[in-house]
């Protein structure tokens, strides 16, 4: 684990073996899904090197449900939530980091409450609220409860606090307003935090399921996760080839993004985790 303990002979070999066995176990379900999705149904539970590769499962899945619409909905949802979060959390974090306003500590405590009581468990009341607002079954109804993210506020506040006050004051002397200072000094310097938060947020809302399935009721607002569940539980019986193809299809953008930018992903999750 450390350079000082590098040469361990047998023990080290044993550990390497253990790590590899665990890693293979960890991706086995995914490899299994790939096998099933890219082979004809008769090979979905039979493993033979002669099995022909095919894309027909993906074509069938795509044609069996309005996945194009679900993709559009999810992309709209993820974008809306992210933009809303970035604006709202940036303003709030700036207030907490640099303005000693009346009631600041109490308000910060009230913000942190959301780390424990997340929108995920408030399904009953938030459903009533959306009903009262008359926006059930819409994409904003899925995103609104998550817009003011305590996690985002916390993360950005920490970052803003590390930025030297002298930069802030220098800009003020030049005659910049509070918002101009935020935009010209704080936001550019916090770029790595924004990237980290954006990756965490996008993967969270791409994957979110329980609240969307409660609040949506039609093809025009359902995100991919809900569409996939409805597709695999009702439309398809037990045609595993098509279900796994649909499953891989819905995860593909995240999986591809992760494999291409895995260093940024891992570092972002790390950065987001250090509080």
């Amino acid at each position, binding site marked *: 684990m450390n350079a000082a303990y590098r040469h361990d002979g047998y023990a080290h070999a044993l550990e390497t073996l253990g*790590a590899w066995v665990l890693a293979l176990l960890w991706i086995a379900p995914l490899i299994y899904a790939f096998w099933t999705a890219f082979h004809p149904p008769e090979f979905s539970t039979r493993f033979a090197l002669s099995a022909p590769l095919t894309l027909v499962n993906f074509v069938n899945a795509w044609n069996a449900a309005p996945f194009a619409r679900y993709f559009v909905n999810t992309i709209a949802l993820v974008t809306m939530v992210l933009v809303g979060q970035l604006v709202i959390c940036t303003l709030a974090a700036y207030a907490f980091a640099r303005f000693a306003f009346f009631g600041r500590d109490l308000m910060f405590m009230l913000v942190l409450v959301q780390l424990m009581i997340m929108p995920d468990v408030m399904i009953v009341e938030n459903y009533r609220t959306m009903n009262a607002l008359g926006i059930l079954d819409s994409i904003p109804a899925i995103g609104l409860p998550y817009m003011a993210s305590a996690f985002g506020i916390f993360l950005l506040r920490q970052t803003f606090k590390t930025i030297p006050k002298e930069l802030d004051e220098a800009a003020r002397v030049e005659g910049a307003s509070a918002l101009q200072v935020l935009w010209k000094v704080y936001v550019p310097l916090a770029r790595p935090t924004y990237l980290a938060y954006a990756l965490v947020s996008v993967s969270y809302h791409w994957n979110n399921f329980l609240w969307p399935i409660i609040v949506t009721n039609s093809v025009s607002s359902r995100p991919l996760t809900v569409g996939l569940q409805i597709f695999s539980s009702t439309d398809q019986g037990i045609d595993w080839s098509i279900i796994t193809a649909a499953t891989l299809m819905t995860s593909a953008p*995240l999986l591809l993004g992760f494999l291409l930018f895995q260093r940024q992903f891992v570092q972002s999750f790390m950065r987001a*985790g250090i509080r």
Partner: protein
Amino acid sequence: MNKYSVHIHGWLLLLPAAALLALFTHFPAVATLYHSFFSNPRKGREAAWVGLENYRVMIDDPVFWQSFANNLWFALGTIPLSIALALLMAVWVNGRIAGKAFLRIAFFTPTVLPMIAVANIWLFFYTPQYGLLEQLTSLAGLPSHNWLGSRDTALACLVVVTIWKEAGFFMIFYLAALQGMSPNLAEAAAIEGAGRWYFFRRVTFPLLMPTTLFVLVNAVINSFRLVDHIVVMTRGGPDNVTSLLLYYIYDVGFKFWDLAYASALTMVLLALLGLLAIGQFVFLDKRTHYQ
């Protein structure tokens, strides 16, 4: 700037976030309590004040108690194992090991995939007769077993999926902490003749305590929050053995449309999370001793 402008600026900047938090976090928490004292509105009849009736129903509801117990078992099954595995993974991936990049990807991949999607894959894995697990056990000569359909194994199957999904996520936090540790510590310990396990037990692990607490809090919250895979894999069955609290709230509220009772059930979940918050507050004080 005059002396009021800092207050005005601060509050104006905070206003959008405060309004949304009030609407979707603080108000719902209070409204849940309020609604838990009312009956459901029916056709031509308003919701009526029923006092503690919903809570009385809850105490006599065997499914609630079962979900509560299931949730505790689920927490007990997922939390220690996922944390231990995460730590092991992080130590491996942080050291000099062949194929480090691959190992890191393999451990972390489940984290970025939608739970709803991977639950479908696991459902297939557990399928009776021709699922992969059945094929493996039949190769080993074991009798056929309906893993998700049996009262004895269904919850354990969900625990396995949850550990698989979470461990790589927690690994990241341990990895970050390990990378922040000074290599001098290990060198000094090696020179002093401390063994590797001794060094881990007496130096690394105590230094990782803040991370462990952070991960622990997250793991506990997740054990009350993660129910996506239940919707896909078991729907709380068989005989409610895989029904967790949040899943039961979802069932009661949005399948039977008994929102009043669901509010009372939500209060239990809120009380548990509140206790956790207090516990964390107490622990956070102690945590400073390690820094």
